[in-house]
């Protein structure tokens, strides 16, 4: 056999290589089957005996994409605009204006917001210094720093922020407990997180996004708040309803103002549900909300205007309370609407100085129709203490077996806490996490010892998640979810089944066709096709590629296109035979002449695959990989493998091969 020694060697070599790379996947399959079938004691035993093996094999086996095994793929982006706000000190109106313009420009022109901010700032006043807003003694940025230095500082902070965010997120994911998570930086501002097997996407979203800003605030003076409440109600009484809702207004309240009953006819059905919001027995603090509710009397509400008169926008969606630190009560579907109303310039002016309105994290009751209601509280803007002083956080249970989070502070924190509680006896201190007030207990005594707790939680999982987020640290800046793809496990299984059926049926049909059309040669081509499939999987395993559903589609496509190379050769051989050549000579000529066509045709598809791989993400890359792998292996099997077989058949066995 002329020159076939090399060809045989290569074939066997690649076969062996494929087998080697695919072996862990086979092992993995068997292990998974065992894990599914065994139970209880046996399962435990099996696990323990094979723990090392399971882990090794798991890592080296062919990994399935999330669209096949189920799970969550999330791309997070650090909000650089929020970061800039965080870093800024002494902001003023000019700062806000520049920020707004910068944000608009950054979106429109696709430049970084830092660039946009700096250029807009310098445009307004070339003499002005950025150090007016940005100072950081640790980083060496003082009042005297040049704009270029500040620009560099901002850039470094932004770059650092994403790296810190990645390690924090990694920590949170570890604590949550996911098998084989993948967390990768993408570009300069994004993180891609892949979590296989997740079945609680809501929880995970909160876990990833939660900034974990724990803050302790003092609260507003009740008399100040009441006065503001009156003023604000009157303001809305006098102004007409303005449709400032965006097109995607979430509430169904467009008909609410007309009825005007929204506030009145939905009294709180379960007013005592509210005491979960404040219970603080552990810490010498009194339960506040009981007092608030005891005073609440639906009939004391301000009369609703008649339908014909101009309506009060605010009262339509909020029950005013003005008791203690509670501004009003809002049902869950009206919160966005109320936010828009209270964030108007005129309203903000009427609030007491340096006071913000924040919602409680847990509902204080339910309306008759089962909607949950939340308090809107007056909270002082100044942050008295942050979560940085927390050294330990734990899930605990109070006497009512409700979950709560106990926090321990370091010595600085303990000192500050003692001072704070000591100076504010009989007043409320709000514990705010990510902008929601979890509890606002009344201080009974000065607290030494640096302990505090967050109560009013819904469940143990909520407490656990808060602990996770507190212990992993606060994110340096808020992150947004800019892309998410989640697939449930059942859908993943269905996709695997569909893919498997497609490959099998496709293979069968093509194989039968080849035999029918090309006879014996077709049989050889089918054999080459089988090798082809093995090699494709081998390549995938060798490069640790992930198999996705489009990837399986790529394999199916390859089955159809792989025969092409064979077809080109066979057709050519037929033609050569027609000119009178002997079988052997025809085979030689066929292979030689068809080669250039095969090469040119397939290489272009290969290029397309390469481009798809570099510009695509996720499942598309899976498709590109199988396409490229398929082309390479089909070239090899058609030209090398089938040639070996034909040569053997014709030369050694003197068979008369039919080409159809």
């Amino acid at each position, binding site marked *: 056999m002329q020159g076939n020694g090399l060809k045989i060697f290569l074939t066997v070599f690649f076969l062996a290589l494929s087998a080697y790379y695919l072996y862990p996947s086979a092992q993995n399959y068997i292990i998974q089957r065992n894990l599914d079938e065994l139970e209880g004691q046996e399962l435990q035993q099996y696990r323990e005996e094979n723990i090392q093996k399971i882990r090794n094999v798991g890592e080296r086996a062919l990994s399935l994409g999330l669209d096949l095994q189920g799970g969550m793929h999330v791309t997070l982006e650090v909000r650089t605009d929020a970061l800039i706000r965080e870093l800024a000190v002494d902001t003023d109106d000019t700062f806000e204006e520049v920020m707004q313009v910068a944000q608009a420009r950054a979106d429109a022109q696709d430049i970084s917001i830092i660039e946009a901010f700096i250029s807009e700032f310098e445009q307004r006043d070339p003499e002005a210094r950025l150090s007016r807003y940005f100072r950081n003694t640790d980083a060496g940025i003082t009042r005297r720093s040049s704009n270029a230095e500040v620009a560099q500082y901002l850039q470094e902070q932004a770059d650092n922020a994403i790296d810190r965010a990645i390690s924090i997120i990694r920590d949170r994911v570890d604590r949550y407990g996911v098998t084989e998570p993948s967390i990768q930086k993408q570009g300069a501002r994004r993180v891609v997180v892949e979590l296989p097997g997740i079945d609680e996407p809501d929880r995970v979203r909160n876990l990833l996004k939660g900034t974990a800003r724990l803050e302790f605030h003092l609260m507003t003076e009740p008399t100040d708040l009441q006065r503001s409440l009156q003023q604000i109600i009157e303001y809305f009484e006098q102004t007409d309803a303005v449709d400032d809702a965006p097109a995607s207004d979430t509430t169904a309240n467009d008909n609410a103002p007309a009825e005007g009953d929204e506030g009145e006819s939905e009294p709180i059905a379960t007013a005592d549900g509210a005491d979960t919001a404040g219970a603080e027995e552990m810490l010498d603090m009194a339960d506040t909300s009981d007092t608030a509710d005891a005073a609440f009397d639906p009939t004391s509400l301000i009369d609703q205007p008649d339908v014909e008169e101009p309506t009060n926008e605010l009262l339509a969606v909020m029950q005013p309370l003005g008791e203690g630190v509670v501004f009003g009560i809002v049902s869950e579907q009206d919160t966005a609407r109320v936010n828009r109303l209270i964030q108007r310039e005129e309203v903000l002016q009427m609030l007491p100085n340096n006071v913000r309105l924040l919602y409680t994290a847990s509902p204080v009751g339910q309306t008759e129709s089962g909607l949950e209601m939340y308090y809107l509280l007056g909270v002082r803007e100044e942050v008295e203490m942050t979560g940085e002083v927390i050294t330990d956080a734990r899930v605990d249970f109070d006497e009512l077996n409700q979950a709560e989070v106990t926090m321990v502070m370091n010595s600085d924190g303990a000192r500050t806490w003692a001072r704070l509680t000591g100076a504010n006896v009989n007043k409320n201190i709000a514990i705010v996490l990510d902008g929601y007030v979890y509890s606002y207990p009344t201080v009974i005594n000065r607290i030494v010892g640096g302990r505090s707790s967050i109560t009013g939680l819904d469940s143990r999982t909520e407490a656990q998640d808060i602990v996770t987020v507190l212990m992993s640290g606060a994110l340096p800046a808020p992150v947004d979810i800019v892309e998410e793809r989640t697939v449930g496990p059942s859908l993943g299984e269905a996709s695997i089944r569909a893919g498997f059926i497609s490959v099998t049926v496709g293979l069968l049909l093509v194989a039968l066709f080849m035999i029918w059309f090309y006879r014996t040669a077709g049989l050889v081509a089918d054999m080459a096709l089988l090798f082809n499939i093995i090699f494709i999987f081998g390549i995938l395993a060798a490069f640790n590629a992930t198999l996705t559903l489009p990837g399986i589609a790529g394999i199916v496509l390859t089955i159809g*296109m792989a025969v092409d190379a064979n077809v080109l050769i066979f057709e050519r051989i037929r033609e050569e035979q027609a000119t009178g050549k002997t079988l052997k000579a025809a085979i030689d000529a066929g292979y030689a002449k068809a080669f250039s066509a095969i090469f040119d045709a397939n*290489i*272009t598809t290969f290029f397309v695959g390469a481009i798809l791989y570099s510009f695509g993400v996720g499942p598309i890359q899976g498709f590109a990989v199988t396409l490229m792998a398929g082309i390479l292996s089909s070239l090899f099997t058609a030209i090398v493998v089938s040639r070996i077989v034909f040569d053997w058949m014709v030369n050694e066995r003197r068979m008369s091969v039919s080409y159809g």
Partner: protein
Amino acid sequence: MRLFENANFQFISNRRTAYIISAVLIILSLGSLMTRGLELGIDFQGGMEFVVESSSQLGAVAVRGALASALGQEPEVKSFGENQILVRTSVEGEISDVQQRILDGIASAFPGSNPTTVKTDIVGPRFAKDLMQGAIYSIFGSLLVIFVYILIRFEWRFGVGAITAIFHDVLITLGVFSILQGLLPFSLQIDQTIIAAFLTIVGYSLNDTVVVFDRIREYSNLFKTETYDSLVNRSINNTLSRTIVTSGTTLLVVAVLFIFGGEVLRGFAFALILGIGIGTYSSVFVASPVVVELRERAAAGRRF
């Protein structure tokens, strides 16, 4: 089995007919694209898509109405698989929040349906812009690479012929997508998988075209006395068997994908079926005639 063994169809001499057919198809496609346009998927437009499974099959129209108040605007609803529907909305807000509203809306409008989410796809507006950019780069990148490659391996006239065939294929396939939008039970929205399908069609169409070109090149070296017309015609005829068989097998497997591959791949498989069919047509009736035209004009001394 022999097919077209001694074919001798007059492809080149009858190329005017092919031009007319192609022209009609292209005009129809352009017309549809300009009036009805193409539906972009959330990959390129941004938005949220949820596949909701319920205990029984829910009607798309009924669900659309039921969710209009929950979301504040009517979402797009399509049936997806067995007992599954796809809800697509461009409402802004927290993902978990929107998802809950959809599930609550369905649960209250269809008691006992127990809706759960089995798949979510969410793309933010800036990310969609990035994906769109990536897709455009892929397309132009591929076209460039292909043109350069053909230039290197064959002469420039072949390059023009190949590119013409590719544009012809993609335009008509897009046109069919545009015309059939909303009429078929599966999604014809343009998203990343469809772009991948189109690029595959490009690669595949090229396969075909290159095989014919290779034969033309071989024959023009062998048969120097033959007229170019008859030479090209012969090339096409001799490669006809192979062209039909390869298209046949590829169409076969893509049809299998279409039937068995599941809902997610249906639009993808459909695009491939269209593209392969049209691509085969164009290799025979568009690419080679263009080459002939260019050669003739050169021979006639005109400026091409």
